[in-house]
């Protein structure tokens, strides 16, 4: 009704206005909607920075700008790595390091998710565990190693325990945070749909907290390699850390470099693994970065 009266008003006042046709191609200086997203990402774009660094390093080594005694050339890492492989030292040390890291990550993730569920989903559980974990959080795990040696000796148990605790913390914190920030609207929905505890947990709580679990896992996996370095350079007889420490004693900077490159490769590939997992499991999410 209202619109009709407006139409008649317009018609009575003036002849129909001629349509104004705007030029379609945008001209420079003409204001256009600016896209605030990031544009289309290149799948291997993240390699640009590392590639630039390696190029600088290679150029520096080749020109003699970087002293080989300070930092060997990048190709030395490869040739020494091949030598070490033929000697059999490389794969033996690599294997033991990977086993330690995998054990620690697995145990730390299970522990972190389990405790986060207990303290995130029940008030009593929170009272029992959350305070403890916040206190534990303020003590660097490395500072606990002397005690762990006292309790567990210097063998594998001590090493895996340290890595487990290092991984546990970010997994716990991120999962707990995700659990506590599950939308209250979904809780209401679950109540009106009369979901039982198990359905609520399986259909709403766990999928809702999964982004947090995976974020914690990413932090945890990266931290596990840090833990590995620490425990392997503490009176160890095997592992990449041990190999680096031994090389330091004999000033074999090329072997030290191989160890560093291995850590980088392990760290990045494990992170890629978790991110692949994220993409598979969180396909329903649409975010700025994707």
């Amino acid at each position, binding site marked *: *009704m*209202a619109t009709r009266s407006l139409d008649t008003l317009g018609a009575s006042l003036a002849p129909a206005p001629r349509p104004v046709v705007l030029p379609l191609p945008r001209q420079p200086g003409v204001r256009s909607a600016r896209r605030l997203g990031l544009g289309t990402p290149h799948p291997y774009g993240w390699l640009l920075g590392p590639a630039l660094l390696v190029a600088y390093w290679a150029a520096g080594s080749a020109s003699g700008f970087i002293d080989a005694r300070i930092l060997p050339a990048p190709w030395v890492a490869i040739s020494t790595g091949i030598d070490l492989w033929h000697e059999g030292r490389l794969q033996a040390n690599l294997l033991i390091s990977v086993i330690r890291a995998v054990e620690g990550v697995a145990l730390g993730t299970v522990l972190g998710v389990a405790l986060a569920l207990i303290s995130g989903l029940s008030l009593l559980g929170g009272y029992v565990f959350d305070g403890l974990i916040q206190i534990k959080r303020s003590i660097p795990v490395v500072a606990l190693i002397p005690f762990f040696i006292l309790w567990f000796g210097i063998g594998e148990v001590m090493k895996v325990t340290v890595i487990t605790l290092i991984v546990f913390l970010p997994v716990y914190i991120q999962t707990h945070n995700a659990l506590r920030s599950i939308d209250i*609207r*979904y809780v*209401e*929905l*679950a*109540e*009106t*749909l*009369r*979901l039982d505890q198990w*359905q609520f947990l399986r*259909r*709403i709580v766990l*999928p*809702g907290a*999964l982004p947090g679990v995976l974020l914690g896992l990413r932090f945890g996996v990266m931290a596990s390699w840090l833990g590995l370095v620490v425990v392997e350079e503490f009176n160890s007889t095997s592992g990449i850390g041990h190999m680096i420490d031994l090389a330091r004693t004999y000033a074999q900077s090329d072997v030290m470099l191989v160890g560093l490159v291995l850590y980088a490769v392990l760290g990045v590939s494990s992170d890629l693994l978790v991110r692949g997992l994220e993409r598979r499991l969180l396909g*329903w*999410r*649409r975010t700025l970065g994707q």
Partner: protein
Amino acid sequence: MSAVGLSAPVVRVRHLVRRFTLKGVLNGIDLDIAPGEFVALLGASGSGKSTLLRAIADLDHEAEGSGELTVPERLSVVFQDARLLPWLSLLDNVILGLNQPDARERGRVALAEVGLAGRETALPDQLSGGEQQRVALARALVREPELLLADEPFGALDALTRIRMHALVKRLSAIHRPAILLVTHDVDEAIELADRIVVLDAGKIATDITTALPDDPEARLHRFAEVRQQLLARLGVADAGLFGPLGGARPLADPAG
């Protein structure tokens, strides 16, 4: 109305009082809803209409209050937002919490009923707002509710989508015959859809009228304008005479008396 009025009410509210620290209050509500009856609940913001709906839906744990409340066992709620779980497919959203062995088949039928056949595996994010609200409607109806509570379910939709949703709700409520309590602030929507309109004001029932729209188009239009005028007066809105030629031709009954 008389036919449904005879059977025992599906919802029975007596002397219902609710007090929140922040949001709405109810000051002694008495309300019966008959099986299959479509009741619209109108009222200004803060009049307590959402509070009443949440009390009936048993979602007001934090409220203090008193009164008597009888609600059926099978009860569904449609919220203003579709409230679909983004990680579940449409079908899994519809049958969430449904424990019958034939749940998936029934979910498929319910999705087809709201015009989303073949979209069972889609994710909620791939749907428009209107489509998402249709899934929410399917999720509510697949439970064969005796009572359907809807809290401004079309409030977030554009005008055209809303008209389509009205037709859909009319059709589906005629098939499933649940009692419906629709909270809305849209007077026209209330008259169009409901058998009966209850106006809340400051936590009390101010008006309770039966729309009784006749089938004859002209008489229907006239009755529509009449009810609209009454409701607007009750809601404290002066009718700017949009329906002037219709309603203004002869004086309407004084809505206050």
